[in-house]
């Protein structure tokens, strides 16, 4: 039944080292599962994967887009132009088709629509439904009428076969995968699916033969060691568990919910718990209670939920409670664009407080870094006894990426400073003892003789309320001194320097034309863009800042001093990071900011870099 197809090695194959696939169609119509399947197969081929998805806000209906970039070396972005676009309906193509590169390949479901043809591209018609139905018909006699009724035609598998063929990939791994996947449904179903795989492949092969156009070829690396395939939300949740988080409370919100879904499943296995709260205020309230009681704790939300937490975050800052608050930023103000991305909540993270109490703000830069940043967040919260706001974003959170298993021997866990029982006996206990670092030993309930009242009211070292001008000054200085301690102790650990793709030492950066300073999920795309510029002879360096507050001012000023022009690219409307630099540093810079719901693509940053280098 499975007929071997020989690949015509003579057809034209671009010699690009990577390939960008984009699938689009009606939400709920299999786009996501076809994308996930394809990712699976590409990963099994030892390729590096980097995905980018946008969902409609509707549950069903609306158009969903799934972009997959696969490369032989580490992928740093979802890429620029699309090599192969698979349009499962007309809307999918008209909304997301403009990114198809010149000479790109459009595969369309010819059972559903026919695109206006365009000379520049290659078009392959794929009657997915018809082919899938044929496969179903073929096994009709081998399954019960009952089973037949409930049997969906194998559209995804047809599509997978076609896609694999297009990128010049062998079908064997997919065959194996399909076998495993359907094994428990019986031979007939397994064979139907394997046949479907080949049917899709064959259908495209025939057209490739006639046009001679295939997508860029990526050679499988079957000897690759196993890697992780995960998205930012998952890595972040794993980082939290690894850092010792044992209590989570949250309230569902796109695109943060997945963190809770992950932790709800995993935490009990580590002796912890997750609780869905009635709202975000309660969620953070439970976290503060749990932290006060001595357990490491986290909540995650997105803009609207973080807004509701503002009062409670301030209580944590004022009463010096460690807590990690994840903001998976999404697009738009107010309800905005829940399924789009943005770096628009930096202002809120920095300034969202009445009067002033200390907080730390950090941002992960990649899927891998989501793990380490979660660990850092807990460590910083415990070390400096204050809320830590971790700024992720929709693109990073939903981005699937192949990554190395984090080296857990590197895991360093910091616990909060606690009073010594002896000390308490001898000297009594002052919860808010004023110290040179600003950090005071913190008791937890159960410690004899170390009772205190945690309070958001202005208070003295014992925690008793007080309002004298002297006390107001001294105690605020004490709390903010912790941030200065943090800046000094941590500043240099929370910046990374790159020259092109590669990490570099600050010492190696000299007399650079363009220095890019950025934060958050844009790291990879900037590295890729600056590598491209460097390849073309431009002089570029890049500093990525992971600690937004307290800002590593000395490091930033040092880096800027080595660059003729500094560029600050970011994904928000007003240039919030640039403004934060204006507040904190003396450096001068150019800005590039916009907030349209999508991540940067490398070309855009490349253009900006080179235009600055030239001018």
């Amino acid at each position, binding site marked *: 039944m499975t007929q071997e197809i020989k690949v015509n090695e003579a057809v034209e194959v671009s010699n690009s080292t990577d390939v960008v696939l984009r699938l689009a169609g009606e939400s709920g119509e299999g786009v996501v599962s076809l994308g996930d399947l394809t990712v*699976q197969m590409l*990963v*099994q081929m030892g390729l590096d994967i980097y995905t980018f998805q946008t969902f409609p806000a509707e549950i069903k209906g609306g158009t969903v887009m799934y972009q997959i970039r696969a490369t032989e070396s580490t992928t740093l972005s979802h890429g620029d132009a699309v090599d192969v676009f698979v349009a499962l309906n007309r809307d999918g193509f008209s909304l997301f088709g403009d990114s198809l590169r010149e000479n790109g390949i459009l595969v369309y479901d010819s059972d559903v629509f026919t695109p206006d043809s365009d000379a520049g591209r290659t078009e392959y018609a794929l009657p997915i439904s018809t082919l899938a139905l044929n496969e179903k018909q073929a096994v009709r006699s081998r399954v019960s009428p009952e089973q037949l009724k409930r049997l969906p035609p194998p559209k995804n598998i047809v599509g997978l076969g076609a896609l694999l063929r297009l990128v010049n990939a062998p079908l064997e791994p997919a065959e194996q995968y399909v076998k495993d996947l359907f094994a428990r449904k019986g031979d007939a179903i397994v064979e139907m699916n394997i046949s479907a795989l080949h049917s899709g492949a064959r259908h495209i092969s025939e057209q490739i033969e006639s046009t001679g156009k295939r997508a860029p070829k990526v050679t499988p690396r079957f000897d690759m060691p*196993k*890697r*992780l*395939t995960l998205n930012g939300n*998952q890595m972040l949740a*794993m980082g939290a*568990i*690894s850092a010792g988080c*044992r*209590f989570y*409370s949250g309230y569902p919100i796109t695109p943060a919910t997945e963190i809770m879904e992950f932790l709800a499943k*995993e935490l*009990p*296995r*580590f*002796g*912890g*718990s997750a*609780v869905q*709260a*009635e*709202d975000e*205020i*309660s*969620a*953070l*309230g*439970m*976290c*503060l*209670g*749990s*932290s*006060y*009681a*001595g*357990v490491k*704790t986290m909540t995650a939300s997105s803009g609207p939920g973080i807004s509701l937490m503002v009062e*409670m975050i301030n*209580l944590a800052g004022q009463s010096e409670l460690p807590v990690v608050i994840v903001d998976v930023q999404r697009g738009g103000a107010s309800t905005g664009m829940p399924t789009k991305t943005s770096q628009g909540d930096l202002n809120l993270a920095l300034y969202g407080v009445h009067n002033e109490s200390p907080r730390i703000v950090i941002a992960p830069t990649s899927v891998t870094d989501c793990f380490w940043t979660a660990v850092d967040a807990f460590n910083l919260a415990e070390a400096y006894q204050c809320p830590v706001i971790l700024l992720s974003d929709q693109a990073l959170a939903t981005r699937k990426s192949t990554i190395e*298993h*984090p080296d*857990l021997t590197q895991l360093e866990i910091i616990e909060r400073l606690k009073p010594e029982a002896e000390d308490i006996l001898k000297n009594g206990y002052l919860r808010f003892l004023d110290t040179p670092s600003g950090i005071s030993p913190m008791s937890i*309930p*159960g*410690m*004899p*003789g170390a*009772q*205190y*009242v*945690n*309070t*958001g*009211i202005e208070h003295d070292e014992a925690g*008793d*309320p007080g309002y004298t001008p002297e006390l107001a000054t001294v105690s605020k200085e004490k709390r903010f001194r912790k941030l200065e301690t943090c800046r000094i102790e941590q500043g240099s650990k929370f910046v990374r320097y790159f020259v092109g793709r590669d990490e570099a030492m600050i010492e190696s950066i000299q007399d650079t034309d363009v220095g890019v300073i950025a934060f958050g999920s844009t790291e990879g795309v900037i590295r890729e863009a600056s590598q491209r510029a460097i390849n073309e002879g431009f002089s570029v360096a890049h500093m990525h800042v992971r600690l937004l507050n307290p800002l590593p001012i000395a490091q930033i000023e040092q880096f800027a001093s080595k660059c003729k022009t500094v560029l600050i690219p970011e994904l928000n409307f007003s240039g919030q990071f640039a403004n934060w630099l204006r507040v904190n540093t003396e450096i001068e810079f150019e800005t590039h900011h916009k907030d349209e719901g999508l991540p940067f693509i490398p070309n855009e940053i490349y253009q900006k870099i080179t235009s600055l280098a030239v001018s």
Partner: protein
Amino acid sequence: MAQAAEIVQVFQPKDYKSDLKPIWCAGCGDFGVLNALYKAMAACNLDPNNTVVVSGIGCSSRLPGFVSTYGFHGVHGRALPIATGIKLARPELNVIVVGGDGDGYSIGAGHLPHCARRNPDITYLIMNNNVYGLTKGQVSPTSTIPLISLQSKQDPKRWKTTPYGSTEDPIDPIVQAIAHDISFVARGFSYKPNQLADLLTQGIRHKGFALIDAFSPCPTFNQDQTDEFYKERTYDVPLDHDPTNKLKAFELALSDEGFPIGLIYKKERKVSVQDELAFLRESAVPQSLDQMFAHFMS
């Protein structure tokens, strides 16, 4: 082993007094409530080191400062989530929540039904003075000041944001608590301190969420619901009342004949969230970090 002498520390009410002197006005009902609480804590022999008293904001919410236990004086209306967090993180701690009628029934109203659903093993003591004390005299959800005409002589200084009376009906916290299925619902009165101490003792011992609404008059800002007012209108829950009968509990709470003091509703065998979470933790197959990662390797 069972015979081995164990030194059981026995606490006296005075052991729960902190060094801070209560800042309440002379004649405030909260003094009586505080004393009842000292007694109840002693009756339950709570170890101050293992006890946390949690509150929101209000005159009554200053109470954690006046007890010698651990304390958490949070923000307005959020004592229940904070207390729940403490209990879930450390089920072995005794957690007592205190606060005002505004704190609990107005800004905090959204947390009450959900705390009831979770049924954590905490005791919630509301000092109900039918007014906002700390902000100096506005209506609370339990205030009863009917709307009057502008020409009437009611002193507008008494109800500062509703000088012509309130346009809103008061809530009935007991009926509401029964509807939320809170597993222990009682009413107390600051001027019946022994009974209140007893109800608090029962509430603390009750396994699950216990709500005790205690009338605690505010002589400074409420001249309508005074101690006299309540002395005239409160009566003991009839001896034959069956608190486990929900419909009967509603009936008692809804009756027009003043305010019954005592245990009004009790739901036995309602499971507590801290136990359910413990069950999940205990029945889970422990996992290492490496095992967790392994799921995602390919």
